[in-house]
């Protein structure tokens, strides 16, 4: 019988707080991402080097995705969406490092991410429509739909959690089972599939976040900017 994939163990304790493995891995990822960002953005110039050009390509691609999906100017949403994408992507791919389990394979991390998306959804909805306006969206198309809309808001957040958690965790779990059975070369295709799944799930999570936030914010006039579209 293999070890439960749902179990979580504290590595050490900082005072009263138990620091679990996902938290430690997340810290490592944060260090990597922020350090890499500082390194890459240290010498930005008008005439870009190859690394700067790649970085700019990444940022403009995320902006383009936001623009295409949300139909608004991307500037306001870029940090959140970009951070979600980068963090989930690197978290999923952290399985490449031996002995490291992706933090997204534990439901607490996914819940934290979905919670942030939920908060952003409410925040942008209220900011764009006002409190009354945002609450009024739950009564669309009729007041009969209010309970259903409320349930939908909760369940879609919950489905985001379970989707990401299930995909990543199942990948880790399947690889663990295969590894315990064969151990050499056989898990490699499954690992590659796991990487693909991790990348796709990162993309899907951010797209869903964009769709939900964009739907909550609606076509707010100040954010709408078609002129900003790059050809």
């Amino acid at each position, binding site marked *: 019988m293999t070890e439960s994939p749902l179990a979580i163990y504290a590595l050490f304790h900082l005072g009263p*707080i138990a620091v679990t493995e996902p*938290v430690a891995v997340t810290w490592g990822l944060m260090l990597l991402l*922020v350090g890499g960002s500082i390194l890459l953005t240290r010498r930005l110039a008008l005439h870009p080097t190859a690394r700067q050009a790649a*970085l*700019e390509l990444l*940022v403009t691609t995320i902006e383009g995705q936001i623009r295409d999906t949300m139909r608004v100017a991307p500037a306001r949403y*870029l940090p959140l969406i970009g951070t979600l994408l980068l963090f989930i992507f690197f978290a999923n791919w952290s399985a490449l490092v031996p002995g490291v389990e992706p933090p997204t394979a534990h439901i*607490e*991390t996914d*819940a934290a991410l979905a919670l942030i998306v939920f908060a952003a959804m409410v925040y942008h909805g209220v900011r764009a429509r006002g409190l009354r306006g945002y609450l009024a969206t739950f009564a669309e198309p009729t007041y009969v739909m209010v309970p259903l809309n409320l349930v939908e808001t909760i369940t879609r957040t919950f489905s985001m959690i379970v989707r990401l958690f299930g995909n990543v965790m199942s990948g880790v779990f399947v690889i663990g089972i295969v590894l315990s059975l064969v151990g050499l070369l056989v898990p490699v295709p499954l690992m590659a599939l796991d990487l693909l799944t991790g990348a796709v799930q990162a993309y899907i999570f951010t797209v869903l976040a964009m769709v939900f936030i964009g739907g909550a914010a609606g076509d707010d006039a100040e954010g709408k900017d078609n002129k900003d579209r790059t050809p």
Partner: protein
Amino acid sequence: MRFDWSTLALQTVNVLVLLWLLRRFLFRPVRAIIAARQASAETLLADAAATRAQAEAQAADIARQQERMAAEGQRIIAEARREAEAERATILAQAQHEVAASRDAALAALAREREAMRLGLEGEARHLSVIIASRLLGRLSAKAIESALLESLLRRLDALSDDEREALTVPGAELQVVTAEPLDPASRTTWTQTLERVLHGQHNLHFAVDPSLIGGVELRGTHARVRNSWQADLERVAQELEKDDERLAVA
């Protein structure tokens, strides 16, 4: 399954901190540099557009100026040409006028001179002929002259045709004999007899004197006259001369 709430809290905080850090260290600088590049590119484009517009304006200015200068040149050339034309026309007209005037003057002078010369020559010739005649006549005696004159007259009368003779001798008409000098009575009778013989019949003869005949005699009838005088000869000569002159002038 145990849901670890402390891990959830920690992860939420972690992601939020990561969000802030990435926003601070990644997205903001990259966005700033992209915006800066866009701004600089736009500035560059605007500069280029402005420069180009300026250059185009300058080119248009230059073209306009050239056009103006060309038009001015054309105008000046046309004006000069027109002036030259007018001047030429005036000069030509003046020259023509002058030439015509001088030619007219020359022609007139020539004609005048020729006339004068002709008159002078005529007069001289007449004078000379008179002198010659008078000299010749002076050498002859009066009788001889008269007889010679008579003879010549008779010869002329002989030479006359019948019609002419009849025209001259209309019966009963007066027949006048004009001489340059008066004839004495003896001569007159001789003349009368001779003429009556020649003209067959009695004629009412008169004798008259006309010095302009110079020498010779004329027989003047009512309808005809027989001229046998120096004057007539001279007139004939003069007419011949005039004819020659005309021929020369025509030639």
